[in-house]
């Protein structure tokens, strides 16, 4: 009997140890660090990364008008609420404010947060922060982004805490979620078409389109086999459409991302309105690349 108790205790401890090891917050890989070491960052290129990654969509002040200026969208005081089945997430202040924001962070802390979803204190972030897409970002783009971030204003709005139910309050468990859900590569296979490859990077990586346009399993992981096939609205009523919408041409897609007008001249709404506010600020070649990717993806033989 005492032996059995000992065995149980032993197995329990081994399980805990395994859990602790498996859920350990990751550090930047030696390859990423090496890439940073030889890269010379450029704030101007970083602005394009900022718009492609849609940072303002969540972290700018809630309820900005559609015609809000670029400067207003660069004030990253946070505060937008996201009601989800797991609870309410609140976008934090990620402005350059030294105490309310992330002005006191080092570049490597920033890169670890964006690319791996780990805070400077070594805690997992919730995947409402789309690092499961940003993990595909090129190190150089993150370096450019940080260079640009240094030029953004400090905003003193305090971050509000998330409001989540148990057990989602236990961040350590997110390590398991990451093991299951962080992608090791792209969904669309490599090709020689450079425009499609640029679009793949923008859609699957920085643009994190799949975070809303792909359905999720019960643990909030993307069902990658249903890539971009539409999903329930992750934050509210209704459905997020399949991409590309049926019958849309490349021109229809680029015009929509630039102006918000659908081919029927309906006007974009909901969360997508903020996406268009960011993507419309990219160079037109990038919107063309997104359209090329979406059309290539949907017409590929396996879809």
């Amino acid at each position: 009997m005492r032996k059995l108790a000992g065995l149980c205790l032993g197995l329990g401890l081994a399980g805990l140890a395994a859990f602790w090891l498996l859920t350990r917050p990751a550090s930047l890989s030696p390859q990423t660090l090496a890439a940073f070491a030889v890269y010379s960052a450029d704030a101007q290129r970083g602005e394009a990364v900022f718009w492609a990654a849609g940072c303002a969509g969540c972290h700018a002040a809630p309820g900005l008008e559609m015609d809000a200026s670029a400067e207003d969208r660069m004030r990253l005081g946070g505060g937008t609420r996201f009601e989800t089945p797991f609870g309410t997430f609140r976008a934090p202040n990620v402005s350059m404010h030294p105490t309310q924001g992330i002005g006191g962070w080092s570049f490597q802390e920033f890169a670890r947060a964006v690319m791996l979803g780990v805070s400077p204190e070594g805690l997992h972030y919730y995947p409402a922060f789309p690092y499961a897409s940003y993990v595909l970002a090129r190190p150089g783009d993150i370096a450019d982004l940080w260079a640009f971030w240094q030029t953004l204003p400090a905003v003193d709005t305090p971050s509000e805490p998330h409001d989540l139910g148990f057990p989602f309050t236990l961040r350590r468990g997110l390590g398991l979620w990451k093991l299951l859900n962080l992608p090791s590569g792209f969904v669309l296979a490599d090709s020689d078409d450079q425009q499609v490859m640029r679009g793949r990077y923008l859609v699957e990586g920085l643009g994190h389109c799949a975070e809303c346009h792909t359905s999720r399993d019960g643990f909030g992981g993307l069902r990658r086999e249903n890539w971009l096939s539409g999903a329930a609205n992750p934050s509210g009523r209704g459905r997020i459409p399949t991409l590309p919408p049926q019958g849309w041409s490349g021109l229809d897609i680029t015009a929509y991302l630039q102006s918000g007008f659908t081919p029927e001249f309906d006007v974009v709404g909901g969360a997508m309105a903020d996406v268009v506010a960011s993507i419309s600020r990219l160079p037109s070649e990038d919107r063309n690349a997104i359209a090329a990717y979406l059309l290539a993806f949907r017409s590929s033989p396996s879809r």
Partner: protein
Amino acid sequence: MFRRIALIATVAVGSVVAVAQAQEQTDPNVVARQSLMRLNAYNIGVLGSMAQGRMEYDAARASAAATSLYHLSLVDQSRMWPPGSDTSSIENTRALPALWDNMDDVMMRGMALRTAAEDMMNAAGTDLASLQGAIGALGASCGGCHRAYRQPD
């Protein structure tokens, strides 16, 4: 045998479609507001197509569309948004309950559309550049409501 099954299947699908059509919106107030939205899109379509270079610029046509749009923005909508006609109360609408909780904001945005449509009416017949200069504000005035008060598909 196979043909018969195919026939039955066709009839069955046809009935489902018929039922779906029967469930279309019947509240005349809701039909009216949705029709108004379609008429807006119909006229914005002319202006937007010209702005995007999909349709050749034609001053008279652009001016007519913009004038129609402006007059549509004057239509009395006071009966088109009755309480209890939101997404949580009826089918076949995308108007979120938040719209009724923020009527002052909605009215203000309605006035913003009227202003944008008036500016477009003054610009559309001048030349293509003027039309293009006015289309952004027009789209933004539509989007202001769609962003906050319309649910995704």
